[in-house]
């Protein structure tokens, strides 16, 4: 910096300042202690019109006297700058939102404030945007809260207040769930920790004491900051959807029972036929005095009475209309048990039984006994299919994995496979391809148990190539059932 500015450079600076003053992209005015506007730029003149010999309150507000609360007066007193948001009128008396920044000007450095410079800019657009945002925030059909690191609610939208009450400053867990402590599996806690977005399904209690199911998404209020100071919780009310889901689940269960009852009739018909045959042989034997025929008839009666017993037993276990007894279960451990159980039996028939497990698969709320039964049924079917197929290198593979939010167990074999006709019938009635050996209940029971878990069973099969039975359990449904059973 040169110590001494030449006259020439001073004049240049003055010229630049003047141009800047005129061309600055906002309205600039300078006022004195008596509210007189003593200077203003072209922008100001264009917007507010003639200002010569007028006072600021007259130009800005079309008033006869100073405002009751006067920023200028305060600045002349304390010499500090101010920013205010106010409504002012242009030369045609159109009112609009402005932000006015006012700063003190001194003729002597450190001296009293002689003038004030006011920079005015229109913010009507911004303001409208703000209002629209507010309406959106309040009325969007979601519950929105912002919580601080202590889990206190610092902001809540209207939808939330309507449902949960006016609760600013209270702990969110207290408001959402009437708990005294933080919730387990809290998604907000995770967001505070890793700054990422998390989702979870929860149930809470409204201010009217009614239960509310909601799906909540938590995200940091300000993204990209190292430390998350606030988390925004956006919740969608899924109470009605949950209710519908439950009804669908119930309907599926009922349908399974209906199909079973229809199938039962068929099994009984076959047994009755056997009894009829036994009876006929005995009476024929008696008429002819044929001892061996009487014996044959009696054997036939025995067999079919036994079948009745088996059927009734299977049927009872099937008809147990109970809810699954859910507990957190390791899917891989379950499969391990089955492999242990069947490995030797499979080996005897030269079939290799393998498990292909997803490592560290998350545990799921399952009825371990029920899933055990399902896997047993599927594996023993697969082994039978391998025997029927009589191929070399037969194998049965049990797989676990997670796919699109679903826990999946799969039993596949390279045995005889099924053609279309058999495939479409396997679940419909007491269908069996094992002649007198099976009751045709295995797959039905399996399907029922799977459905009771809110899951479904899918079959792929190709004649001569093998079959693949897949049990799919949506983890969300499992969790829903789990919460209900608690």
């Amino acid at each position, binding site marked *: 910096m040169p110590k001494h500015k030449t006259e020439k450079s001073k004049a240049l600076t003055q010229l630049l300042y003047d141009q800047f003053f005129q061309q600055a992209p906002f309205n600039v005015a300078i006022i004195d202690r008596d509210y007189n506007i003593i200077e203003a730029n072209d922008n100001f003149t264009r917007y507010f019109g003639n200002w010569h010999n007028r006072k600021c309150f007259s130009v800005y507000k079309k008033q006869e006297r100073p405002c009751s609360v006067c920023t200028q007066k305060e600045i002349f007193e304390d010499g500090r700058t101010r920013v205010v948001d106010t409504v002012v009128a242009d030369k045609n008396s159109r009112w609009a939102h402005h932000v006015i920044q006012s700063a003190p000007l001194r003729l002597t450095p450190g001296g009293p404030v002689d003038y004030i410079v006011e920079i005015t800019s229109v913010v009507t657009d911004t303001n409208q945007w703000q209002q629209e945002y507010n309406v959106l925030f309040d009325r969007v059909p979601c519950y929105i809260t912002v919580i601080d690191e202590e889990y206190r609610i610092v902001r809540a939208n209207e939808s939330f207040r309507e449902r949960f009450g006016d609760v600013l400053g209270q702990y969110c867990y207290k408001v959402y769930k009437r708990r005294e402590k933080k919730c387990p599996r809290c998604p907000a806690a995770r967001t505070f920790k890793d700054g990422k977005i998390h989702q979870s399904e929860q149930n809470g209690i409204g201010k009217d004491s009614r239960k509310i199911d909601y799906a909540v998404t938590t995200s940091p209020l300000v993204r990209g900051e190292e430390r998350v100071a606030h988390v925004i919780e956006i919740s969608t009310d899924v109470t009605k959807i949950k209710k519908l889901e439950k009804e669908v689940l119930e309907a599926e269960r009922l349908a399974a029972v209906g199909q079973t009852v*229809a*199938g039962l*009739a*068929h099994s009984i*018909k*076959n047994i*009755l*036929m*056997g*009894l*009829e*045959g*036994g009876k*006929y*042989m005995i009476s*024929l034997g008696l008429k002819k005095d044929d001892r061996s025929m009487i014996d*044959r008839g009696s054997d*036939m009666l025995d*067999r*079919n009475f036994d079948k009745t017993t088996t059927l009734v037993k299977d049927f009872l276990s099937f008809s147990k209309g109970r809810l699954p007894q859910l507990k957190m279960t390791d899917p891989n451990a379950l499969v391990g048990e089955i492999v242990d159980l069947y490995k030797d039996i499979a080996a005897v028939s030269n079939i290799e039984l393998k498990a292909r497990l997803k490592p560290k698969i998350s545990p799921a709320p399952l009825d371990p006994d029920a899933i055990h039964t399902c896997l047993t049924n599927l594996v023993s079917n697969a082994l039978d299919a391998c025997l029927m197929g009589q191929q070399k290198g037969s194998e049965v593979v049990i797989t676990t994995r997670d796919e699109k939010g679903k826990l999946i167990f799969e039993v596949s074999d390279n045995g005889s496979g099924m053609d279309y*006709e058999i495939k479409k*019938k396997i679940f*419909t*009635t007491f*269908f*069996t*391809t*094992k*002649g*007198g050996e099976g009751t045709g209940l295995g797959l039905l029971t399996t399907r029922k148990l799977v459905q009771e878990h809110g899951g479904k069973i899918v079959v792929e099969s190709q004649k001569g190539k093998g079959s693949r039975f897949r049990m799919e359990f949506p983890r969300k449904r499992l969790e829903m059932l789990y919460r209900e059973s608690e």
Partner: protein
Amino acid sequence: MTDPAEKNILVVDDEDDVRDFLKLALTEAGFTVRTASDGLEALEEVKRQVPDLISLDLVMPKKSGAKFHRELTKNKAWAKIPIIIVTGHACDDLGKADLRELTMSGPGIYLEKPIKPDRYVAAVKQVLGLETSAEEKDLADQVELQSELKNLIDDADPETLRKMKDILKKKK
């Protein structure tokens, strides 16, 4: 007149007991009887010697009754073999479609399990056009009527059934 012993009947059923029972009933009536436990076996038997009548179960492993029948119809000589369907699936979803296909396309009637031996024999004789005793004739007629009525009732909608009931009531 034809003697039952000259008539060769093939009984097809996957249930051992049912097969034995039907075979015995027919043998007692004097027929020559062969058996098969599924559609594949049955086809072999037909190839070996064309039977005069086939008593057929619908739902069986390996080759179902319907599939077996489809094979039969491909052969002109075999297509004429009269068939009696003996099934438990007549009125459920599993058997209905198969049954319709069979009764529409071929000769024969169907009997629903469980069935009494004399009624079964009577139906077989009827289909074969063998001389029957008055009693057997009655039984066979009954079976046929029943089978026909059942078909109608199974296919009828609730509204028609209600009308039928009303008409029957008036007759009484």
